[in-house]
């Protein structure tokens, strides 16, 4: 986890952070995104960038995705929700390289195992991002979790699975040749000893958050054994009910 803070000592990693953020925000513009919930989300090909950049640039992509989201908000959508957007996108850029490192994915991306690992990486990161942003935005009373949380994770997962493998095959070798992979820039980025516990906590946090968030949001919470999540969406139901799962997700990200 120390590479998240330590990377700021490297000028190259700072440059990669700024470039990731700028590209993330810029790719949205020429694509004329298709709005799903006007003003909140749309089908956006840019969602593949945090995953691809994370596998290449590691922690720089996590900060880059978070700043890129803020840069996007500077065009008129700056609000308290930007804070949750920052955190959600940070996780979306942080988890792919941590999971990939933990699960031992290879750079060729040709085998079925690599694609399965990539699918797991994309799914977990997308859900972590969707749950965090959906939770925060519901807590603030902007949009119900059941609407936004699901749209974010489905959009992120679909886009990163369709575009991710192709872009990674195109870019990985080049980035390696140019010495831009995070493993070539930052020292001490091996798999930590706590990765199994981290993975378990992360999966519990993301799956639990997604299931409980939808259960509360759609009014079926009485059918699930989470009494602390009792309430209605827009009240403190989602806000309090999802706190343990969001905390588990963060704990998992730290330990991975």
């Amino acid at each position, binding site marked *: 986890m120390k590479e998240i803070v330590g990377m700021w000592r490297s*000028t190259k990693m700072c440059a990669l952070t700024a470039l990731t953020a700028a590209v993330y925000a810029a790719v949205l513009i020429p694509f004329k995104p298709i709005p799903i919930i006007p003003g*909140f989300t749309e089908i956006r090909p840019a969602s593949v960038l945090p995953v691809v950049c994370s596998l290449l640039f590691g922690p720089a992509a996590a900060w*880059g995705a978070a700043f890129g989201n803020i*840069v996007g908000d*500077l*065009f008129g959508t700056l609000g308290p929700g930007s804070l949750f957007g920052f955190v959600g996108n940070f996780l979306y850029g942080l988890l792919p390289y941590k999971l990939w490192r933990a699960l031992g994915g290879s750079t060729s991306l040709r085998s079925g195992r690599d694609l399965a690992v990539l699918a797991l990486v994309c799914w977990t990161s997308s859900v972590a991002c969707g749950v965090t942003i959906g939770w925060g935005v519901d807590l603030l009373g902007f949009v119900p979790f059941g609407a936004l949380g699901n749209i974010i994770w489905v959009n992120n997962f679909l886009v990163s699975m369709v575009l991710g493998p192709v872009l990674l095959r*195109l870019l990985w070798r080049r980035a390696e040749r140019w010495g831009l992979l995070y493993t070539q820039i930052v020292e001490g980025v091996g798999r930590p000893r706590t990765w199994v516990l981290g993975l378990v906590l992360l999966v519990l946090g993301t799956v639990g958050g997604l299931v409980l968030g939808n259960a509360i949001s759609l009014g079926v919470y009485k059918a699930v054994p989470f009494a602390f999540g009792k309430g209605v969406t827009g009240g403190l139901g989602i806000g309090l009910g999802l706190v343990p799962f969001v905390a588990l997700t963060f704990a998992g990200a730290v330990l991975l």
Partner: protein
Amino acid sequence: MFLYQDKVSFLHRMHPSAKLVGLVLAFCHPLLSSDPLYLSSSLGLALAVGALGRCLGNYLRMRKFLIPLFIASVLLWALFRRVGEPLLMLGPLSVSSESLSYGLAMGLRITSLLLFGVAFLSTTRIEELTAGLEAVGVPFKAGFVLSLAVRLLPTFAATGSEIVQAQRARGHDPFSGGPLARLRKAVPLVAPILLYALRKTDQLSVALEARGFGSPDRRPYLTYRFGLRDALALGVSAMVLVLSWRLRP
């Protein structure tokens, strides 16, 4: 591309950190209550702030975005919030007069919050934002990277548009077909932008280091002074917030 308007106004002259703190205080106002009448006062306050910053024109520019957002927020909350006697049932979702009232309140809340944000962005340059962030404790490098990303954005956006035009000239239309087909067509557009960014990385890091990036001895060109006007503005904002909190329904 950006919302900033080069004008002379009270908000334009405020210290960046005072504007940032003021923005946080303004964001608190609509979050204090879920009553539609109270939230109408938040909207009124946002309009007053817009007049103070001479940026009501930008509010108007944002209407094509804010009106659909308001409608979406009202409808979604009306469907998802389950309170009161249902007037209409749609599977697990229902609409009641209470949920409609809550939806209206949330629509007003999000509109007010975004208008406060627009007022801030219309009166604050990106270098002021960076200085303000540093003044409130954000590390210099983080603020600098944010500012650098904003500066690089037009370059990448222009590159993106050029790539789209070039691909179109070759007969590749990225905007035709269903959502999945359009997604697949994004590869020949996203890949060149990413490669362009990769090529820029080395140049950028050398340029940054040549200018002393990361050196502990920093001598910024721009300096801002926190004055009496800033203190008064923050005091009034805090008083409005406390009063609103005490009088809220």
